[in-house]
């Protein structure tokens, strides 16, 4: 399993890997927002957390379609399916590798973009923390969508369409946790704990569903 993790990480940083693209997309999307809404620093500070979250959500969906498609194209998927190792575990490890390569850079880039959005220290810390807790959930639930779309010739866009509605709860609790941290009366912990719970739940549902979909779509 460590071997699979190491291989996927290696593939994502080698030439042609997608590790850089996601974070670049994230930066571009967030950078474009002020051109739309205007450089009003107070307004940007107010909507900053939401924009960072939406940007991170879109960016983490970006490379998701390749998660199983690449394995299928060169025939590796067949061999992964045949082994004694439970397929759920294989999918889980692939999700972890994918998150480390694409999700974690987003979390690291978030504080910098927070500065561009003129957010204060609390807001930046809260956004980074919630992204750290929330982006794995997006990857896990996205894996299910990627597995469902794996057999389609042009599944890339479809994955986003399939997964976005499923990721709405993550977005809701992620953003509301950040706003709870900034605005005084609302407590931070309840939405954040729900976010963590969602993460754990999706860590189970996602791989199980993805494994089932992969078995069924094999032909």
């Amino acid at each position: 399993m460590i071997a699979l993790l190491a291989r996927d990480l290696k593939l994502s940083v080698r030439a042609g890997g997608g590790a850089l693209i996601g974070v670049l997309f994230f930066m571009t999307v967030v950078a474009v927002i002020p051109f739309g809404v205007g450089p009003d620093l107070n307004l940007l500070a107010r909507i900053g957390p939401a924009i960072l979250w939406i940007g991170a959500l879109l960016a983490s969906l970006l490379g998701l379609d390749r998660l199983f498609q690449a394995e299928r194209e060169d025939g590796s998927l067949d061999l992964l399916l045949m082994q004694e190792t439970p397929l759920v575990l294989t999918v889980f490890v692939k999700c972890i590798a994918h998150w480390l390569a694409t999700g974690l850079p987003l979390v690291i880039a978030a504080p910098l973009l927070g500065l561009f959005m003129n957010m204060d220290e609390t807001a930046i810390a809260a956004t980074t923390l919630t992204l750290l807790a929330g982006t794995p959930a997006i990857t896990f639930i996205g894996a299910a969508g990627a597995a469902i779309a794996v057999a389609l010739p042009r599944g890339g866009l479809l994955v986003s369409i399939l997964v976005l509605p499923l990721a709405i709860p993550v977005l809701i609790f992620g953003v509301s946790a950040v706003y709870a941290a900034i605005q005084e009366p609302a407590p931070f912990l309840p939405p954040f704990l729900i976010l963590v719970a969602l993460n754990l739940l999706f860590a189970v549902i996602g791989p199980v569903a993805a494994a089932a979909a992969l078995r069924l779509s094999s032909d």
Partner: protein
Amino acid sequence: MSEPSLAIRKFSDLANPTRFLALVAIVWPWLAGLTLCLFAVGLYLAFTTVGDYQQGETVRIMYVHVPAAWLAMMCYTVMALSALGTLVWRHPLADVSAKAAAPIGACFTLVALITGSLWGKPMWGTWWVWDARLTSVFVLFLMYLGMIALNRAMDDPTRAAKVSAVLILVGFVNIPIIKFSVEWWNTLHQPASVIRLDGPTISAEFLRPLLVMAIAFTLLFFTLHILAMRNEILRRRIAVLRRHAARAAGREGDAA
């Protein structure tokens, strides 16, 4: 100065990468030494001049910020010239040059952004304002990153070079438009109270260290650029050798 001679040779009788490598081996220690000396002088000057009465000590940030911003633009110009070389003269070194310049340009742009932000915090009280100049530099930074990503996404280097040459030129043509529209957008929104970067005209006292630092940074860029080009040439050579190796092994396999 070794700089002009290199430029002349680079474009005239240096079609051959091997010749280029030989030249780099001679030139780069001198260039690096000169860069080091200039940096020593520049840093000495930068820390001995008195501070500006308005901006205080922070004026010293200018000595790294302005050269980095200058390099960010110059590097893009170098890339645009290389892109022309790739597309028009099909010079084999031109695409190597463009590819090697992208990460260096991105790094200097990053320095310009960071130092600009560090300058802005004590001046404006915030790390970042969507000032026209800063924003344009940020857009330039994104363009550099996009270029690097494009180069990494394609595994055939010569094809990647041609495609990214087109992108570089499109970007180069677009830069004035982007700059103009960002400025227009900015004046549309910007409240007049924000202090602009230019401030009072720079007096000769600041100009001297600034010039020395700018030349030092430029030389640093060229040193790094030719060394990065050398790496890129070696990388391509390795790729060719590997293909040779694979083919040679095939022939032996048939003979056996």
